[in-house]
């Protein structure tokens, strides 16, 4: 009877088994890498918008406060996008004929809203309230990034649960004076350590923030 397997069959079987293990490990690494990649989290990816609105120009160069357009940030759950009417408070006076702004004028004339693509979006199963974060002094820049340097808006943070929890587990270093929350550049905040080093710790006590409660499931998943 002829041999079924050649002498090297054992080696090949072992190599195949090894290859299987390597492939499994690789698959896990690739999956994990994908979950954290900007391709999955959309960090830095620009969405196509009806009007190429530049935060860099409006915030960085003109110095318009965030709350001028996102008026409900301090009082509502959503920061809200500006109504067409808000855009036209200025653009009925400046850049009145700019072709770039044609959709805005069309929206005002027709009464149909502008259709923006959402950039900073949370899943439906996450409860998030802007007002509480702002009133405790989490500045805009923490979650939305340096919008004053974004010609076109893109997501600045991955918005994964681990990122949310990083802050909820230790909120103190992220707190700033609520009066200055729209400030973009906090690089010199730490230059006065005598005052600022204790600010967060102090404010968590003042506000009664308890990290143990902030990490409970139903804080965000209601």
């Amino acid at each position, binding site marked *: 009877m002829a041999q079924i397997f050649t002498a090297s069959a054992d080696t090949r079987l072992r190599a195949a088994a090894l290859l299987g293990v390597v492939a499994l490990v690789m698959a896990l690494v690739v999956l994990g890498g994908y979950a954290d990649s900007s391709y999955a989290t959309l960090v830095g990816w620009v969405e196509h918008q009806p009007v190429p609105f530049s935060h860099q120009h409006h915030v960085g160069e003109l110095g318009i406060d965030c709350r001028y357009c996102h*008026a409900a940030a301090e009082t*509502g759950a*959503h920061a809200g*996008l500006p109504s067409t009417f*808000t855009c036209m408070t200025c653009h009925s006076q400046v850049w009145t004929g700019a072709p770039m702004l044609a959709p805005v004028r069309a929206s005002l004339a027709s009464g149909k809203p*502008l259709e923006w*693509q959402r950039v900073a979006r949370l899943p439906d199963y996450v409860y998030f*309230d802007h007002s509480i974060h702002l009133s405790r002094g989490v500045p805009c820049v923490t979650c939305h990034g340096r919008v004053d340097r974004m010609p076109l808006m893109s997501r600045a943070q991955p918005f994964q649960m681990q990122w949310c929890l990083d802050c909820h587990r230790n909120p103190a270093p992220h707190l700033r004076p609520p009066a200055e929350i729209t400030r973009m550049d906090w690089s010199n905040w730490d230059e006065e350590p005598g005052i600022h080093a204790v600010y967060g710790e102090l404010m968590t006590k003042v506000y009664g923030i308890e990290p143990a409660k902030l990490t409970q499931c139903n804080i965000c998943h209601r």
Partner: protein
Amino acid sequence: MTADRQRERWERAAAGRPEGVDRRTLLKAMAASLALAGLSGCGAQADEKALPYVREPEGFADGAVRWYATAALFEGYAQPVLGKTVSGRPIKLEGNPDHPVCGGATDAFTQAALLGLYDPARSQAPRREGRPVAWSLFERFADDLAVRLDQEKGRGLRLLTGPLSSPTMLAQIAAMMRRWPQARWHVSDPAGPAEWRRASRQLFGRVLDRQPAFDAAEVVVSFDGDFLGPGPRQTPNARKFAEARRRRQAGKGFWRPSRCRRRPALRPTGGWWQAPGGSAVC
């Protein structure tokens, strides 16, 4: 549309077979949904667009709660409620605490009335022969109809409503009936208090409503009447009843409710006098 086709349509509709979905399509859709069910676990939801207002209402804050005082109908009676809305969406009904009838309380039916707004079968547009049409079409149709009805004094017009108690609506219907005297108005009220209506007509010669003042009563006798049970006056009745009992508990006045009943009903049992000889006597 010819009369033949119309009749055919009617017959098909009357046979109870839904249009548009036949057996094969349904089975295909079921097979596809079964096959694709496994995929529902993976994949993100499609991104939805953000649509801001063109002109934002005064004082609007996206995601903040707003309350509106309004009314929800229950068997034709307005229940005074506060509607809770978030971003323009009603999400909860509560009793209006400033209203003398309910004082902030509601019943289960009024609570559930909110779901009617989200009923997928709720009509989004006027329908003509089962198809949704524009309001302008309905207006033209109504104008033409009005001209014809004026000539014929309303012959052939049938108005079908649920039970109503709104003075404005009743006045409008009365005006319509004066204009078109031969029209007929039907009220569909299958669960309404038919017995009470008959009784009140026999007693008083006309249909009257009842407004029991439990809070003013010394003795309440109920003959198989579930006066705290479901109905449009559930909330005020329960309130007045509770008030009377509270008064007795505070030692003020003699108050004794009694019951004779055949079937169990929602009523507290403490301090009740039950008719002797079992429950089937009265």
